[in-house]
């Protein structure tokens, strides 16, 4: 009897278990996420895909950290005394290990990560049905603007980069493009975006690129190629086109760098930073939307002090007084320097000067106006393009086109905000001399735009890095340029690992 019972139990038990196993399919759904095949179906998907592309501004290889090392510190405005020697070496043309993550690879990777996101939008949104076609067009146009922006900076930094224009697959090994091809793609994307993007956005969408943002970058791309006529046509938008009267200079120069007066009338395009999230810089929940720039550029014993300004800037500011006989007020908001307290009765994060007497630190975007320390969560929007820059670009283009007389007014507008005399009064020897005008304009740009990540492109555009003699002149301001080899250091080396892993790529010349 007992035996029978065992047998019964034994035959039933495994059966029950076997049955339950069968029911458990091997196909286990991932309960944590949505899959790609469920996505790219709705208008909201399209908008979210686009937003994810904007989030790339917050990544350390790009605008939350390292790109300032490439654009500001490598130029003659800045340099590094970082105890992290390799980091500093990468601001003074001592590129030893081309795979240095912080100096090279991360910026490269994040550039293409951003490109990948824009490519996803461009490839997938086309097939999504929208109730309002213009809404869809605007999404595509924004993606094109963002892609062009990232390729613009890739062209400035590495020049000969591969153009990836379709969503990536793991085994992609794209073909290298020439600098001319990269510029052509930037022009194409921007030209197409310009046809769609609005002159102004409604309040909830302020911060997305306007037609003016596009025209600014289109002009920059043309100017880097010295296509002055095309550049002028693009910039005409702000003066005779639909953008005329939409922009102006803010009264207080300082308002261009704080978090309290963002997206103002001077702003042509700015990165929308926020300190709402206090997370890491990966693609995880609570990921940071902030910039680390002030933490990395703040003076020693306040921040990492990995980058600082060359002292010649202080001297340059002090060469000319305002019409009221005062020191150029832009100096106060551009730099921390030894005489700051004496000159403006201002302090450095609440401290008196405690650094070397020949040192200066970048002040723009520093948050000492409301706190005495820094962290990784700065919320100040970074002004990629200000109207003051547009004015100076326009002046430059006009001068190059031989319209020097016409160019004066735009420089004067910038100068007059800070109560500097008109250019003709202050520098009567320039006259209609194109070269003299250009030389002065170079200084006008530094005084207005130092520390705003335009100087490296300026030096390249002006040809100041094309001959040994010219480089020697730059080296007088910034001795790091003594390491500069003409024809080599004008562009970064491609990450070595990328060249090794992709036989379609050739390392940049002389590396």
């Amino acid at each position, binding site marked *: 009897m007992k*035996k029978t019972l*065992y*047998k019964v139990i*034994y035959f039933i*038990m*495994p059966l029950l*278990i076997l049955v339950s*196993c069968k029911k*458990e399919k*091997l196909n286990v759904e*991932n309960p*944590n*996420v949505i899959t*790609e095949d469920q996505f790219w179906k709705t208008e909201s998907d399209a908008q*979210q*895909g686009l*937003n*994810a*592309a*904007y*989030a790339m501004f*917050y990544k350390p290889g790009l605008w939350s950290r390292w790109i300032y090392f490439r654009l500001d510190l490598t130029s003659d405005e800045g340099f590094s005394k970082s*105890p*992290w*020697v390799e980091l500093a*070496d990468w601001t003074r043309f001592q590129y*030893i290990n081309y*795979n240095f993550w912080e100096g090279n690879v991360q910026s*490269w990777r994040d550039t293409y*990560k951003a490109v*990948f*996101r824009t490519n*996803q939008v461009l490839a997938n949104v086309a097939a999504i049905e929208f109730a309002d076609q213009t809404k869809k067009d605007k999404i595509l146009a924004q993606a094109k603007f963002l892609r062009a922006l990232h390729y613009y900076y890739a062209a400035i930094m590495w020049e000969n980069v591969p153009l990836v224009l379709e969503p990536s*697959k*793991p085994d992609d*090994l*794209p073909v290298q493009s020439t600098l001319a091809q990269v510029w052509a793609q930037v022009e194409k994307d921007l030209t197409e975006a310009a046809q769609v993007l609005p002159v102004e956005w409604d*309040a909830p969408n*302020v*911060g*997305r690129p306007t037609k003016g943002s596009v025209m600014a970058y289109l002009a920059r791309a043309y100017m880097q190629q010295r296509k002055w006529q095309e550049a002028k046509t693009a910039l005409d938008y702000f003066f005779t086109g639909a953008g005329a009267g939409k922009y102006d200079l803010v009264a207080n120069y300082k308002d261009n760098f704080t978090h309290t007066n963002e997206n103002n009338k001077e702003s042509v395009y700015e990165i*929308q930073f926020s300190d*709402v999230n206090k*997370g890491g810089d990966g693609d995880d*929940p609570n*990921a940071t*939307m902030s910039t680390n720039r002030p933490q990395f550029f703040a003076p*020693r*014993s*306040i*921040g990492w002090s990995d980058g600082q300004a060359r002292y010649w800037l202080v001297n340059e500011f002090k060469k000319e007084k305002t019409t009221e006989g005062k020191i150029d007020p832009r100096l106060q908001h551009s730099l921390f320097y030894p005489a700051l307290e004496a000159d403006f009765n201002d302090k450095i994060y609440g401290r008196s000067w405690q650094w070397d007497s020949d040192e200066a630190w970048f002040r723009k975007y520093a948050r000492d106006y409301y706190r005495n*320390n820094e*962290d990784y969560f700065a919320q100040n929007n970074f002004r990629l393009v200000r109207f003051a820059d547009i004015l100076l670009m326009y002046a430059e283009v006009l001068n190059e086109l031989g319209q020097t007389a016409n160019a004066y007014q735009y420089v004067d507008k910038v100068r007059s905000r800070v109560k500097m005399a008109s250019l003709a009064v202050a520098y009567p020897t320039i006259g209609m001399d194109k070269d003299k005008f250009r030389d002065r304009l170079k200084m006008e740009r530094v005084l207005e735009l130092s520390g705003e990540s335009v100087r490296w492109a300026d030096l390249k555009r002006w040809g100041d890095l094309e001959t040994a003699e010219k480089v020697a002149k730059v080296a007088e301001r910034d001795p790091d340029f003594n390491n500069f080899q003409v024809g080599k250091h004008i562009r970064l080396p491609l*990450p*070595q*690992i*990328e060249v090794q*892993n*992709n036989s379609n790529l050739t390392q940049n010349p002389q*590396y």
Partner: protein
Amino acid sequence: MKMKKRLFHYAMGTCAALLFSMQLLAQHSIKGQLRSANGEPLSGATIILKGTNKSVVTDEKGAFSLDVPVGSTLVVSYVGYTPQEIKVTNQSALDVQLQPSTAQDLQQVIVVGYGTQQKKDLTGAISLVKASEVQKRQATTVAEAMQGLASGVYVRGGGRPGSEANIQIRGIKNLSNSNPLYVIDGMITTANRDFNPNDIESIQILKDASAAAIYGSRAANGVIIITTKKGRQGPMKVEFSGKSSLEVTPRFELAETEEFARLNNMAYDNAGKPRQQLDMSVNTDWQDEAFQVGNMHDYNLAFSGGSSNGSYMVSGGYFGNKGTVISTNFDRLSFRVNTQGSKGIFSIGENLAISNSKTDEMSGNPYADVTRLLPTIPVHDPANPGGYGYGNEAKARTFGTNPVAIANLEDRTNENFRVRGNLWSELKFLPFLKYRLNLGYETSNDHYDYLRKEGNWTLNQPYDPAIAEENRARWQSGLVENTLSFNKTFGSHSVNAVVGQTYQRDDYARISGRKRNIIRSSTGEFIDVLDQGNEPQTGGYNQRAVLLSYLGRVEYNYADKYLLNAVIRRDGTSRLSTANQWGNFPSVSAAWRISKESFFNVDWINDLKLRASYGTLGSSNIGYWDYLATINTFSTIAMGADQHIESGATVVRLVNDDLKWEKLTQKNIGIDATFLNNRLSLTAEYYIADTKDVLTAMPIAYTTGNDGGNPVVNAASLRNKGFELSATYREDLKPFKYYATANITTLKNKVLELGYGRNNIYVGNTVTEIGKPIGMWYVLETDGLFQSQQEVDNYKNKDGKVIQPTSKPGDIRFKDNNGDGQITNADKALVGIPWSDWELGLNLGASYKNFELSMNWFGAFGATVYNGMKSLVDRFDDNSNYRKGIQPWTPENTNTDVPRAYYGSTLNSRGDTKRFLENGSFMRLKYIGIAYNLPPSLTNKIGFSNASVTLSGQNLITFTKYDGLDPEFNNSSIYERGFDNYSFPNLKMYSLGLQFGF
């Protein structure tokens, strides 16, 4: 046909002989006394009348009586002794002395997965590790304690409290995870730090494909089968063992303030930079601050017993480890109940282990920090937020972290409460047919706690408020196994077969929370609960994987001479896409016992067996949903005049959706032999293991924009070839006994193919290339130092171009391998292999009367390793402390290989050079112990059945030329296995152990 005929004759002959002998039989009562070699009575031994079921067991005094026919044969056997056959004559009393077994190895029962075999019947490559050897050593995990105890098993660990050693069987089979599968009492799991090694009864390591094939898809990295202790028939036994140890970390030899200042000033002077204003009044020994004498306590108490139809074993253990680094700790409480019972054809049993482990984790890496901090920095500095010294821009510039500060300002604990066990029952329908149901279950509740207090530990650190973080998670794994086994002998033919079906489901779920600005109580303590603070962040996710398998095995044995074993397993996994879920993994192996052949007649060879096997194993050891393209929905952006937050969604990580099973094909030949009256036993193996379609997250081009980890791909093909030799010699020269075991392993790995059509993978200073071993060193070659400006000027390529025009005397001369007249990445060369040519384990033991001495040596030879510490402190371009006695080149001191000290430039201090590669060979005394077993006369008086005291030491002596802290270091990256990046070293340990039972 011929065979059949022979079999027939053989069978007929046997029958005839039996008939003949029966006629002669006359019953005869015989009494006997059984003793051990030194005269002690042996109780509980079995005496069987050969060829029958008739048997008796000796009583407490070792006596027995039995009615047997004259002329018959008695077989006397007792565990641990050589069985003896005795011819029955007319005598009425027998006095039998059994000799301790020297060939007991061969009789050992081996758990092979869903069944057991005797060691002599093995056809595959299986190593046994003696539990007693493992338990001798003071170790957190069983893996760590296995170093050198079996051939073909690579172990690297370290002395961090709660750390788990890296273990790898027969080389690197894939490029991701090399940890083997653990099967503990039939539960498929891991023997992590929650598992108490003292509960182990036996360990077997399944190394080749045929041995491991029954575990199919899970066995590509080998299988470690652990059986825990069971009760034995008899009254309750109580066993206690306790060990207390002191731990001492090896230390760097670093400069003190005076020497440091001289070198630091030299580096600044050479660079033309103003010297630092070093504070010469401070001379901090950071190693004294960060390190301490650690200790370990391990106490275990076990109760066991049983009857003829049931047994029990209850054990409890406490393991405590105060680390050699300040503020590190590990504690484990464990509890186990193993019971089993049977009635008639039904039996049932369970193994249940409950443990709670708590780790006070290390913050930062103090081994790096003690070398980076300058001796001129004080430990405390009230001028800094938090009050700790970490340098100062003018006086002591370094990015090092103050280890005391980080230890106090960051609290990190991990606690795991784990229940692991299985319930099994068997029904023996027929004597040869058995059904077994095995239900396994494991769960752990994991709790992670983090508190970051306000304050700084490094120069220029960004401000952080007090932050509290907590994770709680639950892991569960359920296993259901149905097996049916058949076991029958037909004359000389013996067949053993098993078929089965298994199902395992793993679940993991986690939630986490984080708050900032944690407040303090009035006493200054942080109230680190998540109700406090602000700016909350939360998170959570769930994971699940299912594995469904069918398995079958047939073992055939003819007269112990010919052995054949065939296995098939079919696995389905949820980790691959529907089309590729199923894989088949067959294997076959055979053995031939030559020594049983009639033609074999060599006196000094007692047993000789040849083995060969061929089989395929699989792996899907990847993430839960690596084949699935998903959308990352975590992006947020600020937008609008009000800077409101909008969400984003996009593909971040690329995937390969056509992933399939990784397959390992392994061929193995082996020989087992015993010689000289079983005094010498020897096992030798040679194998070739090919892995195809290796599932790995192989680096892809950055231009893809991929992030969040490289996509998993069936990328590479790898080959491992190896030879393993294990030899034991033991001899009993009463009262002196000794044994010696040597385990020798050689292993060569080679890349046959790489994914995406690529020829190489570069990681750090290594390259992995087709036709070469994984992770070869790929660096610039150096050619001494320039001794004069003339040497610099004369160092030209064939076109007369000066190769290093900016160099100065005292700088490194690099080899311009491509002859282009400049030093670039193109000059790098393959200069060394990070893998050992061979490894040696030596286990020696001797006993004299009541004293026992044992030693385990372990050595690895031929690896080229990268000294990460030297690459950091010998550079001079960046401030760290320096090695004591280092002699940088100066015009006065040119006889050195250290270039001139130069602050602030990497040109002379780059890490991607041959300069930091060293010979990593070493030989180490892993364990030495002397034990005293109290004589029975003494133990009886105090009511103990046995008692012993052991004094032992671990890692006491090391022979090596390696200049780093520990040549036996661990780097978890497969591509950079030879990179000693401040790995936590193995520690010297001094232990006192006490063990007794009653």
